């Protein structure tokens, strides 16, 4: 029921009789309890002229539910305190109460943009526990679908990064690209986003006609389309001038912060798990590891776009070299690995995804620890942001490409 007030009867905010929901005088200090740690005490003491700004869990940027408390001196950020946990769903605990096969579907929504990589790590760890060799055709299909997912993820990164810098067109173009790739993967896996495609010992379904025709059609256009998307931003002076010099990390800091992926390669370290610790059939594929030395947001963006080109190369080679054979190893229906521990790591679009699985001989994993790159990179924001302006906050966070599902598990 909507109500209107005839003129002269509206009670203004100055009226002491009006009880507002947000009573400014009684705002609780941030945080509403005494600081418990050294760092908290250091952050929550204000110097002269500083103020707190709460970028609440709901905010216009598209990273997800992340709350950042900023300590500002005018427009400059002095310090930040990210508050996580708004999307913590207890995946590791749920995985301890599910069969090995059931955990795979729990792991998809961690980094929902790059679901296949989230599944791949634990699946590799389980295969190590079971001493199972994945058939070569299944490995090639895994690499093929993984690289498609990587391209979709990097395209989305481009869209979000531009959106956080103010550009509204690239995100529409990015979603067009992503929709095409994701419809392809839906023809292969059955789902648009949370694919649930990898299985212990292989993949769920073989390549089919629908997928191959869409893939062929897309591959004939892909290079040109992606090139034109990238040129839209690379040749835009506003974008380049804003992104260059933004959020510079040097090599030493990046290594101390345990960063991986494009964020580390942008600082000059050519570390890619596909070459540093090869897995699957990557040793047989020929691709480069693009690296840059500037360490700023523009370098991270350009690096990811070059990785897209390398992914296209890998897809080409996969299609040429695809062997025949089974797509799934022979495994009993009820998986009961011997007691043991296994760690597996792989290179996804955001960095190094890892999984540590402990088996105690029953049909449920005893412990599954997921290592997520977004979690590590969000830590870096605290080292990067001080000194920048408020408007750069979201841009720097977007350039590190965090996905809150993975950060919060």
């Amino acid at each position, binding site marked *: 029921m909507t109500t209107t007030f005839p003129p002269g009867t509206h009670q203004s905010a100055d009226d002491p009789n009006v009880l507002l929901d947000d009573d400014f005088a009684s705002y609780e200090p941030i945080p509403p309890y005494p600081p418990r740690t050294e760092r908290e005490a250091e952050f929550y003491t204000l110097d002269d002229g500083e103020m707190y700004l709460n970028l609440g869990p709901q905010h216009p940027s598209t990273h997800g539910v992340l709350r950042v408390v900023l300590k500002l001196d005018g427009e400059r950020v002095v310090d930040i305190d990210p508050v996580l946990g708004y999307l*913590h769903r207890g995946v590791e605990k749920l995985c301890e109460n599910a069969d090995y096969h059931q955990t795979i579907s729990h792991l998809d929504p961690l980094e929902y943009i790059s679901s296949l990589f989230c599944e791949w790590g634990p699946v590799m760890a389980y295969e190590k526990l079971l001493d199972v060799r994945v058939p070569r055709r299944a490995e090639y299909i895994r690499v093929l679908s993984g690289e498609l997912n990587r391209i979709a993820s990097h395209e989305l990164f481009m869209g979000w990064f531009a959106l956080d810098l103010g550009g509204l067109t690239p995100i529409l173009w990015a979603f067009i690209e992503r929709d095409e790739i994701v419809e392809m993967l839906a023809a292969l896996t059955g789902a648009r986003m949370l694919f649930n495609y990898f299985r212990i010992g292989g993949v769920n379904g073989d390549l089919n006609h629908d997928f191959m025709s869409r893939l062929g059609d897309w591959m004939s256009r892909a290079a040109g389309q992606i090139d034109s998307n990238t040129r839209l931003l690379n040749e835009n002076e506003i974008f380049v001038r804003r992104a260059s010099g933004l959020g510079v990390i040097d090599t030493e800091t990046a290594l101390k912060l*345990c960063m991986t992926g494009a964020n580390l390669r942008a600082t000059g370290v050519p570390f890619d798990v596909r070459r*540093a*610790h090869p897995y699957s059939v990557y040793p047989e594929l020929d691709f480069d590891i693009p690296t840059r030395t500037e360490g700023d947001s523009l370098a991270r963006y350009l690096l990811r776009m070059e990785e897209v080109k390398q992914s296209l190369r890998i897809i080409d080679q996969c299609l040429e070299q695809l062997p025949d054979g089974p797509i799934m190893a022979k495994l009993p229906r009820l998986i009961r690995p011997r007691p043991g521990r296994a760690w597996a790591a792989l290179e996804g679009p955001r960095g190094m995804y890892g999984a540590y699985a402990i088996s105690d001989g029953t049909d449920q994993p005893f412990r599954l620890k997921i290592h997520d790159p977004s979690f590590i990179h969000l830590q870096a924001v605290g080292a990067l942001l001080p000194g920048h302006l408020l408007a750069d906050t979201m841009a720097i966070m977007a350039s590190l490409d965090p996905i809150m599902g993975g950060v919060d598990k």
Partner: protein
Amino acid sequence: MDRALKLRLETRFGDILRGAVRQRHDETEIRIGAEDVIDTLRSLYDEPGLGFTMLADLAGVDTGTEMQVVYHLWSATTSDWLRVITIGLSRDDPRIPSVTFLWKGAEWMERETYDMFGIIFEGNRDLRRIYMPPDYTSFPLRKDFYLADDAARSPGGGVRHMERTHEPADALPGTRRAGTGA
């Protein structure tokens, strides 16, 4: 499986290691006690023959009888991953020195382990909860923290004896059973 790495580790750390150096597939695993964490990891980091400068993961494990903290390290000198398992942390008061002096990135990983298990990392400047709300009192990934399971009577629910819920219909999320420490 890098046999040379096993030899190097045994000669360097022989007396500190609790148990043999185990290797399987492309992982090498050593076990140490909580008091040796600082020296061992610093040696692994600094010495040029070992050079484990990248911390891949820091995980906590609750085995039911004790707690463990597991570090996964990568080095350019070997083709194996190194897993350092710190054993012997008690379930009532688990304490372990922090590795934030080597890797600043371990701060949040230790916060997560504290939040999920209650393991206190001595030396971490910011050891507070990261996922759960700050006034949460339980540690969810401990084995004595039961998930509310309204289907616990089904054969699929709570296979392990430790996790069998006894009043499933009334259990609320976050309920902790009697007999556990803080």
